């Protein structure tokens, strides 16, 4: 909790775009690389029925999962990077891809600046993913930090 508050502080607790830490406690944070997959059980449920298990939402951001929905890097109240961690890490390694685009779009990066965003992420692969047990929370923090220290992209996180 303390850490998340600190992140929120880092991101500028203000009326600015990232007034709150993306997500919140108990919000799918702490997803490590490779742990982002739902288990086999959930998969069997989904594939047998085409359905959903448990709190079937209707795309509402409010409600059941105890997440703050105000951060940019959230989706349906969950951490976006936590939700697409595997895909995002691959795309950063390659320097392109739909998950990387999705994070740029969610951060509000204009189309004209997306190439720069992708290049920045790719060039800093080792910063974003220093080890196998990096968490989605840490990755999200570093995405913001990298953007902040980049002349072209800082305006999206100020």
């Amino acid at each position, binding site marked *: 909790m303390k850490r998340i508050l600190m992140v929120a502080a880092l991101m500028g607790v203000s009326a600015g775009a990232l007034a709150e830490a993306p997500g919140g406690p108990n919000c799918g944070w702490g997803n490590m690389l490779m742990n982002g997959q739902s288990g086999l059980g959930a998969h069997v449920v989904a594939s*047998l029925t085409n359905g*959903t298990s448990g709190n079937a939402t209707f795309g509402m951001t409010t409600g059941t999962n105890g997440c703050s929905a105000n951060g940019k890097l959230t989706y349906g109240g969950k951490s976006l990077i936590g939700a697409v961690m595997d895909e995002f890490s691959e795309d950063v390694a390659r320097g392109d891809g739909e998950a990387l685009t999705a994070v740029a779009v969610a951060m509000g990066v204009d189309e004209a600046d997306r190439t720069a965003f992708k290049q920045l992420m790719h060039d800093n692969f080792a910063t974003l993913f220093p080890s*196998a047990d990096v968490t989605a929370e840490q990755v999200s923090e570093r995405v913001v930090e990298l953007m902040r220290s980049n002349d072209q992209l800082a305006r999206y996180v100020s």
Partner: protein
Amino acid sequence: MRIGPARTAGLLPGLLGLLLATASPANPAAPATDTDSPTVAALAGQREWLQLLHYTPSWLPGRLRNFVDDPDFFLSPRGPHDPAAELAATLDALRRDPATQCRFPARRQWLVARLPGLAATLPAAHCAEYEEWRRVLAVREAVLVFASSYLNSPSSMYGHTFLRFDSAAPERRTPLLAWALNFGATVPPDENGFVYAWRGLFGGYPGQFAAGPYFEKLREYSRLESRDLWEYRLNLDAAELDRLLAHAWELRAINFDYYFFDENCSLRLLELLDVARPGHDLADQFPNYAIPIDTVRAVIDAGMVTDVAWRPATRSTLRWQIAQLDAGERQLARRLADDAGADPQAFAALEPARQRLVAEVAYQYLRDRAVHAVPDAALARQNFALLQLLERTAAATAPPAPPRPAAPETGHRTGLAALAAGTEESRAFGDLEWRISYHDLLDPPAGYPAGASLNMARMVLRLKEGGTLQLQRLDALEITSLAARDQFFRSWSWRVNAGLERQWTDGDDILVTQANGGFGGSWAPLPSLLLFALGTGRLEVNHALDRSLDLAPGLAAGLRLESPAGITLASADFYHFTGGEDRRALALRHELALGANLGLRLQLERRVNEHDRVDEASLALRYHF
């Protein structure tokens, strides 16, 4: 749900403003409680009202039944069968309670448009929850998504469809951040596994609409189930999307009847599209069953699709990339997947573009294997090491995207009728075959998953020389899944079949009831050639056997060859019944496609047991309709 006491309805300001402006207080709507009022009766009979309420003609003439299995959807106790009572109750509730306007925005919209003056009699409603939902979705476009056939799950064998809503919001304007609206069973959390499996297979869970992020659907279909997705962009305009979403909102948490074997997720979507764009009556085209790809065709035929995009499953891309590697590179990629530090000299000796392709294959292959593995520290380390390898090779040219296969809607149609002429034991016969669905190993393969056969309700009637007409076979179900094994994929092949068929036993041609299944492997020494071998088992009810209900273990082997001359399937089957009888069958079948929906099939078959040796040859003209 919050209701603002003195606010004007702000649901759809533009549209409502227009409606309110045209409403005339001098012309009030018919009394709401009067079911016999001509206005109410006439409106309640309109197709659009029936579609909004999900009525469908019942077996009894003049009667209606309803797909909705939920009292919360109806405002009148007679609602499930009586559209006029429901309409009267809706008018009454709209006037009485502002919450009804928020709960049923599509009904409200439709009635307000048809009853001049109604809007003026409605209380002010502030639909905060609904408006927030619409604001979050900010729908710009809708896409119909078809997930290709998945034989390992009964509810997905014929494929699956759902809707994707692309957002107009700048921070959501990319496919991954779109919302998917899916109709499927809703399983309670913490459901017991056995109960789950039973009800999952045989029904028992209610069906509901649920919305969720598209990236979760991609993970489910593209990564976990290796199913290609086909995205059909719809040309719904703003008013049509508005109606669709207003109605989808009415269906939130509403239970429908849901049966797995007559897959009806696709039918539910057609009903939504019928509400969005009245006049095509898409759902009515499928009174008995709705095969997902047929519903996609209906939507295309109605002129609602502007373009089609293909999104290969992760494994489809991986398989294609593996096929681009030479034998040495393949070996290397396979070793790297186990150990990212394996053979650095061999890796360094490759051209940069080949290094990248090898790294891609090694990484994706590890990911593919990890999908069903319990994540552990060693796997995470290896995953990370390959990710680093991928990053180091990323400066080289990216591997080209796999070529797009034939779109599923361009494949042969799903029904089949065939006429055959042949001889059995030197006596002529004619066969009439009819199959409700879907595809076998010899049918034209374009648009269908390779190596897969899925057939339900297949019947063959035989007219024999001398005038005897007999039921030759009736297959309730036949599924075959042949997936080639190689150094990367340890896939299993299997088949099941149950129904009635003719078996020569003790010199008689006997109609037996049987079920059989097999499990084994397939190998593809050439891309066009598949060899398979299965251990099999068979249960047969046949009074001419020593045991009238007998079990036979067996073996089956064969090959399937695709060539410019058509598709050839050769097979050998052996069974040994516990009562002592042995049975062997050799078959050679060949189909020459004469068009997308027409084929000529030659079949040669020899069946041998202790008393009988029966040779059969036939030539069939097969038409898919």
